[in-house]
């Protein structure tokens, strides 16, 4: 029994190939059943996202199963097998297990530490369970992978630092104001990124979102989706002191928010802090306002700088994640090894016991030769002999690994005692 993964990801294949190979969720059952048609493949699961397509298999023979899987993928994606094979990676056993652990925790993702992938692994597994293509091994593997992913998220800072510009802005607002509940937000312009930042803010239960846009209809549309109110664009700066957070993303090519207006607003606010987020290019907010006491201004470059350093921080955290994964893979493989052993142990015990019973029957079966008490003693004695003989080989099999390349102890035992 071997774990095998065959697939490609953003690290090995360009988007054109990933597009072709991506399998819709309604077509997954078909591909899964095709994969399991091969006698070498016992269990299977297919993960297909925009960044990766991977078949996780439990197989009797690594090469044959991998060969067959790449054939299936090339047929499904309509790509020639020679071409595809250059982009595919095949990993088995420890490497395959570690790979799934990495994928599920977001360590292998394009944006390191993103958490969407964990959900996608869960979905892929649910589909496989639904189609009855999983068994003992895959069940154990996926559960462990999700477990490890959770452990990595709590023990490392891999998901801690925001890696999108709009979310980084929201976290900055929290650094200034703490709880954002009840804070008032003014959104200038209906640009996409500004709207996204406003959406993040509304999720933080801000008190009010005002939208000022040059074309009123578009502003009204956005106001509805954010459950905010529309204010006329010409008048926004009259009531600037009422808002705590200003997000600017208009198409204007000069400063819409001027220094004097902000100074005046700050006086009326009695110096309560204000946070300005300028996501527009060219900039819409006069950078000079950052000099005003208790006013904080971040433009798109500042935010991008934060995102970049956060990405680096996540890379650094992924190193501690790798350490956790290495430990977990070892533990998982030895746990799986135990499942592998139990049929052999059972067969071995059964064979010895049947020999024991057979011999007792042969000598004392006809009855009369010994009393029932004597027979009972004989049974106990022979059972103890069998157990004592088997004790050492079983312990050895459970606790020790044979040398590299040597056959497993269980295989040797099977051969020696003609089990199966």
């Amino acid at each position: 029994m071997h774990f095998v993964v065959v697939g490609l990801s953003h690290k090995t294949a360009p988007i054109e190939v990933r597009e072709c190979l991506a399998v819709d969720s309604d077509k997954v059952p078909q591909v899964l059943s095709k994969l399991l048609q091969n006698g070498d493949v016992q269990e299977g699961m297919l993960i297909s996202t925009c960044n990766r397509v991977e078949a996780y298999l439990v197989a009797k023979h690594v090469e044959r199963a991998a060969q067959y899987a790449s054939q299936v993928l090339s047929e499904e994606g309509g790509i020639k097998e020679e071409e595809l094979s250059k982009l595919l990676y095949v990993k088995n056993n420890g490497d395959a297990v570690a790979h799934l652990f990495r994928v599920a925790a977001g360590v292998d993702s394009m944006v390191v530490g993103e958490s969407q992938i964990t959900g996608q692994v869960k979905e892929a597994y649910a589909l496989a369970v639904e189609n009855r293509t999983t068994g003992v091994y895959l069940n154990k593997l996926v559960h462990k992978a999700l477990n490890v992913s959770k452990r990595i998220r709590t023990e490392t800072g891999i998901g801690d630092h925001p890696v999108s510009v709009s979310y980084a802005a929201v976290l900055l607002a929290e650094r200034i104001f703490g709880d954002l509940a009840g804070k008032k937000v003014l959104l200038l312009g209906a640009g996409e990124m500004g709207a996204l930042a406003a959406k993040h803010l509304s999720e933080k239960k801000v008190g009010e979102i005002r939208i000022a846009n040059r074309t009123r209809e578009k502003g009204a549309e956005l106001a509805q989706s954010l459950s905010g109110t529309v204010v006329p664009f010409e008048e926004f700066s009259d009531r600037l002191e009422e808002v705590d957070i200003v997000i600017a993303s208009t198409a204007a090519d000069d400063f819409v928010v001027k220094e004097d207006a902000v100074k005046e607003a700050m006086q009326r606010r009695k110096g309560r802090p204000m946070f300005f987020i300028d996501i527009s290019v060219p900039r819409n907010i006069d950078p000079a306002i950052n000099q005003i006491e208790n006013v904080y201004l971040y433009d798109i470059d500042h935010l991008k700088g934060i995102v970049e350093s956060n990405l680096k921080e996540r890379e650094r955290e992924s190193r501690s994640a790798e350490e956790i994964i290495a430990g977990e893979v070892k533990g998982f493989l030895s746990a799986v090894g135990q499942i592998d052993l139990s049929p052999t142990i059972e067969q071995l015990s059964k064979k010895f016991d049947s020999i024991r019973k057979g011999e007792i029957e042969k000598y004392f079966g006809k009855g009369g030769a010994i009393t029932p008490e004597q027979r009972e003693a004989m049974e106990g004695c022979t059972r103890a002999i069998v157990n004592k003989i088997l004790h050492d080989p079983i312990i050895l099999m459970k606790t020790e690994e044979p040398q590299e390349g040597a056959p497993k102890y269980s295989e040797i035992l099977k051969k020696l005692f003609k089990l199966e």
Partner: protein
Amino acid sequence: MSITFSILTAGFYLFSSLGYLLQLIFSRRRLGLVALWLLRLGIIVHTVLLAGELRRNGYPFIVGEADLYLCASWAIMAVFLAVRSRYRLQASGALFVPLVLLILIFAVVRRGEYGLAGEAIANPWVLIHILFMSLTFAVFALSFLVGITYLYEESQLKNHHPGRLLAWLPSLEMMDGIHYKALTVGFALLSVGIFSGAALSKVASGKFFSEDPRQLVAVGAWVLYAIFLNVHMKSGWRGRKGIILSILGFLGVIVAFLALEHRVS
């Protein structure tokens, strides 16, 4: 003072300080938890030390300057433990614990006795005065340390370099709030402290107000804080400038207090 308990307390605080500092350097939450436990053990031993000292002194319990430091450092630790989780001040342990350690060392090194003799020393005003002055000091120290933290976070945000440390600190608005709340409470405590000090002076020298330098410092500080808080309330004055001013004020008062001695004439 019991040497064993002093060393034990200082040891717990020293390792707790180290834990808090390392937590910030390596950003590992677990180090902070270890530091907190060391701190809790430290304050237990500190309490035993303080109680032993007070019992040994007998009525009216607090007699020398060492007792004042012992009380004040205990009060700072108690204030920190009381507010740390409510205001997300866990990371500020790296400031609080070393400060307390410093004061504790002071308590051992500076063993000045008050110039009170005979009947004056067996006076309940001594206890009340020192108790309230310790609390005043503890609460002002809170506002001071929160103020320093505020300045750090403010400059990081203003200069667009919000480091990873910020995730461990309270928000600017919250720290501004704690700072002024602490100043207000400290001001009330200081008022009682000064009043009881005057009463003590009356018993010792027959005058409510003598030319005692420390008394002058205290009254001067009271006037400054009164003006400061008044301006803050009226104009809503907040942010960096106000905090810098209050930090300088605190340092000035402490330096003056340590440089001068009580002189009861």
